[in-house]
């Protein structure tokens, strides 16, 4: 007889004892080899394809990594002159957009009830052919094409195609165009084109609002060039960037000096600077011939005379003019997208004059680059086509990777005009506001699945090749056009030919003239595929200045009405013009300036907010003469109090799961064109603001931007340029309680140069892509449970401003696991899931972690992220996951691993090559993509490695050094003119 309790104990122990022995493995895996193995594909090893990013017109070359036929990561192509081996935040998010669940899976057509139904390609193409045939029979120009900027093969094809249909209506429409700049080039030099800017050659840049570090023209290339120049100019007492704008964009926040003129008077600032240069005899000798002409053109605009209109004192203008003229070479960049209104053309013209005066033309700015964006449709051409559509002159409209319903302000009337077109076709790959109104959708492949080419400027012929087979039943637009043309008439068939699109591209790229050249042509094609295109140096042109006096007459603006504001609709660093709003990474990663996720906001200056009785988060209503919107207020000191601003990309259609019904569209407030000139404008003046409701929850992942007023000094440190070679002694001598760690082989470390980091978030998106970081969504973000392993903190230092000249003094600090030598987290893990590995990494073993979260509690940097729930990936987003990185489940802690998978892969490659690891073999995802080259990784045990040399730099420091954590990451102080000497 045994007692019940004893019985249960016995059974329990015996049962578990049985389980202690090895159980029979339950087979859950199958091994499925290929039927026929593709060439050069080794299972378990990635394949790489060179292609071109088409997220914006910059045309960055990319190398796309694929595993098992799935696209997992995109990197910049090191051989490419535009991207130089780097990609921006939008380029990194491209791999997510391939697997976006909202993508169209088949062609669709509207049925009699107006509902989209799937249709076969054969039926869709014959339907389109029939409509086009009917349109052709109605006369000329009855078919219209509005699409993204094209060059090369697709440009040639669509041109031939439309001519065969007897139509000249083809618009290359980009949301952000360069009309004022092109116009100014025409006036100044007789060259109707966008100039080539070479920022790495500029010792000092004056930007009148151009957002060249985020979205304008070619932000990866410009960030890279700017950072390079900035590294050369560390000790310059005036810094390297002056921004003259009523609002600081991300580019503006990076500036060393900021002049905030009255909105609309930016051109006067430029002219006043030109006047000062001429008047004070500071002009470059090369400007000699033009000096007299320029002098008379800028004569009315002395700094003293315009001081009142621009709200900036003359002494500041003269000082900046002196700095600009003395830097050799310097560079004046104009207004960018949000530019100036009115007088946008005059602003660009004045900037060109400044460049002439400083001798920059032919140095940091030149002509003859034949940018693709020179061929963009003007707002006038868009309005004309809109009118034609509205009048019923267009029977078939084809929309190709453009979304004018959303991006054109409503007063343009595009939506109504579209409604008058009987048959609207879209080639979009995913739903948008224009496909919501289309009759037929023929989804194009994603650009990462496409053949094609794109030449952003002369000398850069960039190729697109598929990195993976098309995921869905989509078809290359080129193939659709060819097929449809072959169905309409014999003439259209003849005009277009009948090759497949892939062959069409290939033959455009390899044109042998004789039989002997066939081999060379084939070799040329293979070489182009391998390197991502053909790149050669292009000739620069140094044009001569014309008489510009007449164009520079600026009538004084009427003063703004009391209690009104100027509203600026800004391009979004993440969404661009809104196109990226449906990518969850771009929604979750906080905006670089406002640090807000998953929602929109309206920026209001704290003084204005006080006057209006608004606190941060209150709902405000903004009314212009064209529309009205409401959004939560976000107080931002980086602008004039009479300015309010809002990013574009919110208020999108419900057909997108993440972007839909989220926030308000800033474009609703905008006028159809600039006052007095026929180009696009992204500002509205005379706007009224009022409080409309109580606070909304705004998901801010960094609520406080530290300033001197706080008791704690900002973590992102600054140093005066004159002291960049002085090492600050540490506050305390280091103390060791334990014997130091031994690192027998390598010791991995990182150096982050805060002087280069622009805060663009490219590294954050790259980390999401590389490390299978989960997107947690709004609710968890609001609770502070976002999973990003690296975050960019924005730290502002309040520097007492000299009269008229402010210093943004902002430091963007990438914060990630510091891999501390004396890690507070390692000491408190009860199960040894985190420990210090012999190579200096703070290791996190997911399988051991039991989720006590003591480590995160102890981490002073708060870089440890806990999986509060099992986050899934909506199909097919899971295809993008990197198989080299464990996908974490609920209950485990995760954090930056210094891309341990890349360290292991580099070791394997080195072993297979029979050599030891070299500096540069291991590049974590963040370091690889940073356009500013701010992050450097390597072996601290190698005295010749870049990271060792940078870690020894006098500007180097450790964040929270006083806690004695001994991080493996050394930050280099940002050089900021005016930084106080005792800044710690």
């Amino acid at each position, binding site marked *: 007889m045994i007692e019940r309790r004893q019985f249960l104990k016995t059974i329990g122990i015996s049962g578990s*004892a049985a389980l202690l022995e090895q159980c029979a*493995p339950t087979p859950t*895996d*199958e*091994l499925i080899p*290929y*039927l026929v193995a593709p060439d050069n594909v080794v299972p378990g090893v990635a394949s790489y394809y060179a292609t071109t990013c088409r997220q914006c017109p910059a045309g960055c070359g990319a190398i796309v990594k694929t595993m098992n036929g799935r696209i997992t990561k995109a990197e910049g192509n090191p051989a490419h002159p535009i991207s130089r081996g780097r990609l921006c935040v939008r380029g990194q998010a491209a791999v997510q957009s391939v697997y976006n669940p909202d993508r169209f899976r088949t062609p669709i057509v509207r049925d009699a009830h107006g509902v989209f139904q799937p249709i076969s390609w054969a039926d869709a193409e014959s339907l389109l052919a029939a409509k086009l045939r009917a349109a052709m029979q109605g006369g000329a120009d009855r078919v219209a094409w509005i699409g993204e900027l094209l060059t090369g093969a697709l440009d040639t094809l669509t041109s031939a195609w439309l001519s065969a249909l007897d139509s000249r209506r083809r618009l290359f429409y980009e949301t952000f165009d360069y009309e004022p700049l092109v116009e100014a080039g025409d006036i100044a030099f007789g060259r109707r084109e966008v100039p080539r800017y070479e920022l790495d050659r500029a010792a000092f840049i004056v930007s009148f609002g151009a957002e060249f570090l985020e979205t304008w023209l070619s932000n990866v290339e410009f960030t890279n060039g700017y950072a390079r120049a900035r590294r050369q100019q560390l000790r310059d007492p005036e810094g390297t960037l002056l921004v003259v704008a009523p609002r600081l964009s991300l580019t503006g926040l990076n500036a060393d000096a900021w002049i905030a003129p009255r909105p609309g008077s930016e051109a006067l600032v430029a002219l006043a600077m030109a006047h000062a240069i001429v008047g004070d005899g500071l002009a470059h000798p090369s400007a000699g011939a033009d000096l007299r002409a320029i002098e008379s053109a800028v004569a009315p605009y002395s700094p003293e005379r315009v001081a009142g209109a621009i709200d900036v004192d003359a002494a500041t203008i003269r000082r900046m003019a002196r700095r600009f003229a003395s830097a050799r070479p310097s560079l004046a960049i104009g207004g960018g997208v949000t530019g100036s209104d009115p007088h946008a053309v005059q602003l660009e013209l004045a900037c060109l004059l400044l460049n002439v005066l400083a001798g920059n033309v032919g140095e940091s700015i030149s002509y003859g680059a034949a940018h693709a964006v020179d061929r963009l449709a003007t707002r006038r051409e868009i309005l004309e086509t809109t009118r034609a559509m509205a009048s019923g002159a267009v029977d078939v409209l084809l929309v190709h990777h453009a979304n004018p319903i959303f991006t054109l302000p409503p007063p343009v009337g595009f939506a109504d005009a579209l409604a008058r077109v009987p048959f609207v076709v879209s080639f979009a790959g995913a739903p948008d506001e224009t496909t919501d109104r289309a009759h037929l959708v023929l989804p194009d492949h994603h650009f990462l699945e496409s053949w094609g080419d794109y030449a952003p400027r002369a000398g850069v012929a960039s190729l697109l090749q598929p990195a993976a087979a098309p995921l869905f039943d989509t078809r290359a637009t080129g193939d659709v056009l060819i097929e449809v043309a072959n169905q309409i008439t014999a003439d259209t068939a003849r005009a277009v030919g009948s090759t497949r699109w892939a062959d069409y591209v290939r033959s455009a790229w390899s044109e042998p003239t004789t039989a002997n050249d066939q081999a060379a042509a084939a070799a040329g094609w293979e070489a182009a595929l391998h390197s991502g295109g053909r790149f050669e140096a292009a000739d620069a042109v140094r044009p001569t200045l014309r008489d510009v006096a007449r164009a520079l007459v600026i009538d004084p603006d009427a003063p703004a009405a009391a209690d009104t504001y100027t509203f600026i609709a800004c391009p979004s660093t993440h969404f661009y013009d809104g196109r990226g709003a449906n990518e969850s990474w771009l929604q979750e990663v906080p905006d670089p300036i406002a640090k807000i996720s998953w929602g929109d906001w309206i920026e209001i200056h704290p003084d204005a907010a006080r006057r209006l009785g608004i606190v941060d988060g209150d709902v405000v209503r903004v009314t212009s003469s064209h529309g009205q919107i409401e959004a939560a207020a976000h107080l931002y000191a980086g602008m004039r109090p009479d300015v309010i601003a809002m990013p574009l990309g919110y208020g999108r259609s419900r057909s997108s799961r993440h972007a839909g019904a989220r926030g308000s569209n800033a474009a609703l407030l905008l006028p159809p064109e600039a006052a007095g000139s026929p180009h696009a404008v992204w500002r509205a003046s005379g706007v009224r603001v009022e409080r409309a409701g109580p606070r909304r929850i705004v998901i801010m992942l960094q609520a406080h931007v530290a300033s001197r007023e706080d008791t704690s000094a900002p973590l992102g440190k600054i140093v005066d340029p004159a002291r960049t070679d002085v090492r600050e002694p540490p506050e305390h001598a280091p103390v060791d309680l334990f014997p130091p760690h031994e690192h027998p082989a390598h010791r991995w470390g990182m150096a982050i140069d805060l002087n280069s980091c622009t805060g663009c978030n490219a590294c954050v998106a790259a980390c999401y892509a590389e490390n299978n970081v989960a997107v947690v969504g709004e609710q968890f973000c609001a609770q502070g449970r976002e999973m990003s392993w690296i975050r960019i903190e924005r730290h502002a230092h309040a520097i007492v401003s000299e009269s008229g000249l402010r210093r943004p003094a902002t430091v963007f600090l990438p914060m990630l696991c510091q891999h501390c030598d004396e890690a507070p987290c390692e000491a408190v893990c009860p199960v040894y899931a985190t420990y210090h590995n012999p190579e200096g990494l703070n*290791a996190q073993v997911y399988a051991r972690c039991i989720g006590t979260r003591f480590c995160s509690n102890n981490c002073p940097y708060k870089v440890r992220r806990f999986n509060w729930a099992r986050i899934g990936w909506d199909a097919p987003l899971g295809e993008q996951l990197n198989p080299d990185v464990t996908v974490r489940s609920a209950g485990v802690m995760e954090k930056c691993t210094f891309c341990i998978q890349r360290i292991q892969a580099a070791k394997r490659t080195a*072993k297979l090559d029979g050599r030891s690891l070299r500096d540069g073999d291991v590049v974590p995802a963040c370091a690889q993509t940073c356009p500013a080259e701010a992050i450097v990784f390597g072996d601290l045990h190698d005295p010749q490695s870049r990271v060792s040399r940078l870690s020894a730099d006098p500007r180097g420091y450790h964040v929270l050094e006083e806690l004695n954590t001994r991080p493996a990451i050394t930050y280099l102080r940002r050089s900021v003119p005016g930084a106080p000497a005792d800044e710690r």
Partner: protein
Amino acid sequence: MLVPSAVAAILFARWAFGAHPYAPPQPIDFSHRVHVADDKLDCELCHSGARRSPVAGIAPLERCIGCHKYVLTPHPEVAKLRRMWEAGKPIWWTRVYTLPQFVRFDHASHLLAKVGCETCHGDVASMDRITRVVEPTMGACVRCHRERRAPDDCLTCHY
């Protein structure tokens, strides 16, 4: 009372599971003994990834057909193979040596270190049907790593 029960349970488990090593039936009754011991084919002819990849891989069907288009065609298993090739169906082999998902094993490093395939996979050349004769336990891995001075740092395999 407790200890004898535990001992009995352990002995029972060892008998139940130890005596019959895992040798699942495969879609095609491929014999390593014939191909390796008799025909002297190298492991890497079919498991070609072993030298350059974390994954050793299994020969694509194309490789099998390379010989078996002509060799031993009357054999029922070869006929099965050819039918699958004609139908364009890849073979779904049942996995015998499996590691849990939280373990990352790199074949290439081990081949470079001259670890023979038999060390972890047993005497495959003698097996008609692949049998799991060596249990890939963490203890076995760590023991060998320590003996041969390979890294026994957790991050080597768990990341």
